[in-house]
C-alpha cells in the first residue's frame, strides 16, 4: 500500500471509529410533538407577554434558562427567528451547523439551535407543531412581489434588518433564519413542497435560552405558504422562567452532538 493510500485508510478508519463512538451514545428517540393543551406556562413565572401583530417584528433579551414561547393562535404560516449571543453578537444562529451537526433539517422538540461557535444558543423544549424550516427561511421584498404582486408588503428580510438595528446591529450581523410553523419539505426531485395540514390554531414552540440571547422574531408568512392574499395573523410571545434542566434533560442528552454542544456552552457560565 502506498503512503497516501495508507494515510487515507487510517483517516477512514478513524472516521468509522468516531462514528462508532457516536453511535454508542445512541440518539434517544425523540418524543414526538408536545400534546396540545399540555406543558402549561406557570403564570407566576411569566416575565413578559405580548401580542405581535401580523407582519411585524419583535425583539427581546433572554437570560440563560429563560424560555420564549411563541403561541400561534391563528395558525399563521411562518414565524421567523434569529438569535445572537447577547455578550458577543458576532456569535449567532448558524442554520448550516444546526442542520449538519444534527444530521437533519427537521428541528422538532428535542433538537437544539447551534451558533457558529459549536455552542447551543437555545433548545426546542416544547413544540406542538414539529414542522419548521431553516433551509429557505423567510419572505423578502422579491418574494412578496412574486407572490402578491407587491414588494412593499412587510417581509422577514426587512423585519430582520429592523430588529437587528434595535440592538445596534446591522445587515452584516444577519444570516439565514429559522422559520417556525413552516412545513417545507425537499422532494425527491430536489424541489420544495409545502406540506398541507400541519398547522393547527394554538400551536406553540418554546425555546429555552442556553446562553444570554438577543432574539429577533418576524411574524410574516413563509414565502411558500399557500394563499393568494397577504394575511398574517397575530402571534403571542411569552417569556417565562421554566424549571431548570434536569440531568436527563431531553435536549441536553438526546444526541452525542447535543452533549458535546453543551460541553462547549456550559463553560461560558461556569463559576458565575
Amino acid at each position, binding site marked *: 500500500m502506498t503512503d497516501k493510500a495508507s494515510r487515507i485508510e487510517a483517516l477512514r478508519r478513524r472516521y468509522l471509529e468516531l462514528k462508532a463512538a457516536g453511535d454508542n451514545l445512541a440518539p434517544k428517540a425523540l418524543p414526538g410533538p408536545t400534546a396540545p393543551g399540555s406543558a402549561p406556562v406557570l403564570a407566576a413565572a411569566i416575565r413578559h407577554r405580548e401580542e405581535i401583530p401580523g407582519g411585524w417584528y419583535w425583539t427581546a433579551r433572554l437570560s440563560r434558562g429563560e424560555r420564549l414561547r411563541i403561541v400561534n393562535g391563528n395558525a399563521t404560516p411562518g414565524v421567523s427567528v434569529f438569535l445572537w449571543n447577547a455578550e458577543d453578537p*458576532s456569535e449567532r444562529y448558524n442554520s*448550516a451547523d444546526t442542520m449538519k451537526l444534527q*444530521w437533519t433539517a427537521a428541528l422538532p422538540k428535542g433538537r437544539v439551535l447551534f451558533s457558529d461557535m459549536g455552542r447551543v444558543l437555545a433548545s426546542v423544549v416544547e413544540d406542538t407543531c414539529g414542522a419548521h424550516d431553516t433551509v429557505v*427561511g423567510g419572505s423578502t421584498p422579491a418574494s412578496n412581489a412574486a407572490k402578491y404582486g407587491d414588494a412593499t408588503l412587510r417581509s422577514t428580510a426587512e423585519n430582520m434588518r429592523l430588529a437587528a438595528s434595535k440592538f445596534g446591529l446591522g445587515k*452584516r450581523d444577519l444570516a439565514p433564519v429559522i422559520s417556525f410553523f413552516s412545513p417545507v*419539505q425537499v422532494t425527491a426531485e430536489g*424541489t420544495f413542497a409545502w406540506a398541507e395540514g400541519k398547522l393547527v390554531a394554538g400551536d406553540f414552540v418554546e425555546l429555552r435560552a442556553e446562553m444570554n440571547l438577543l432574539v429577533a422574531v418576524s411574524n410574516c408568512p413563509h414565502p411558500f405558504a399557500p394563499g393568494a392574499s397577504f394575511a398574517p395573523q397575530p402571534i403571542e410571545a411569552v417569556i417565562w422562567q421554566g424549571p431548570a434542566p434536569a440531568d436527563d434533560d431531553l435536549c441536553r442528552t438526546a444526541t452525542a452532538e447535543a452533549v458535546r454542544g453543551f460541553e462547549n456552552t456550559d463553560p461560558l457560565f461556569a463559576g458565575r
Partner: protein
Amino acid sequence: MTVTVTPAVLDAANAVYDFTIPATRPWSHVVKRGQILRIVDLEGCQAVDTLFYNAHDFAERYSAQDTLLAQGSAYVSTGTKLVSNDGNVMATVVADSCGRHDTSAGACSCEANTVRFGHHTRYMHACRENFVIEVTKWGMTKRDVVPNINFFMNVPIEPDGKLAIVDGISAPGSHVDIRAEMDILCVVSNCPQVNNPCNGFDPTPVRVLIWDGEAA
C-alpha cells in the same frame, strides 16, 4: 443579460487568470461583471467552499436562503442564479459538469468539528479558519462569514429532513462555470476536512481560471 460566451469554447490558453489553489488553502479574487470563473476539481471529490461579496460593498453578500427561495429548489447547478442578501443576482452558474452542489450544510469550523467528531478534533485546520484568514485581508471579520456554497459536495436532503454529507459525485476534472453579474469578490476555502467523506479523506488542489466574457 445575454450569454454570448458558451463555456464549451473556453480555452485555458485564453484565460486572463489561472491559479491552482493548493490543498487545504484559502483563496480570494475579484471577478468582474461579465467574466467567467471556472473552478476545476482536479482530482475529484474535493469540496470547494465558496462565498461571494459585492466587490464595491461587502455588506452585500451571497445569501443561501435568497438563492434557494428564488429558484424554488434545494441544490445549486446549471442555471442557478446566486442571489445576494439584497435580492440581487450576483452570478449565474452557466455550466456544471458535476450536476449538483450543496448550499445548506455550510463550512466546517474548529468548533463545529468538536461537536461532530469529538473534542480531540479541535486543533485541526478548517474552512472557517480559511474564510476568516481570507476575508480579513479585505477588511472583513468573522461576522461577514455566512453559510456558503459547497461546490462538488453532495448533501442530499430527504423529504423527512434527513441530511448527510455523502460520498462526492465529482469526478477528476469536474468543473463549474460561474458568470459574474456584478463585480464580485470570490472567497474560497479549499476544504481541509479529513474527518468525513467530503474530500474522500484526502484534500487535493483545485484550479481556478477566469475568462473575460463577451456578455453585454
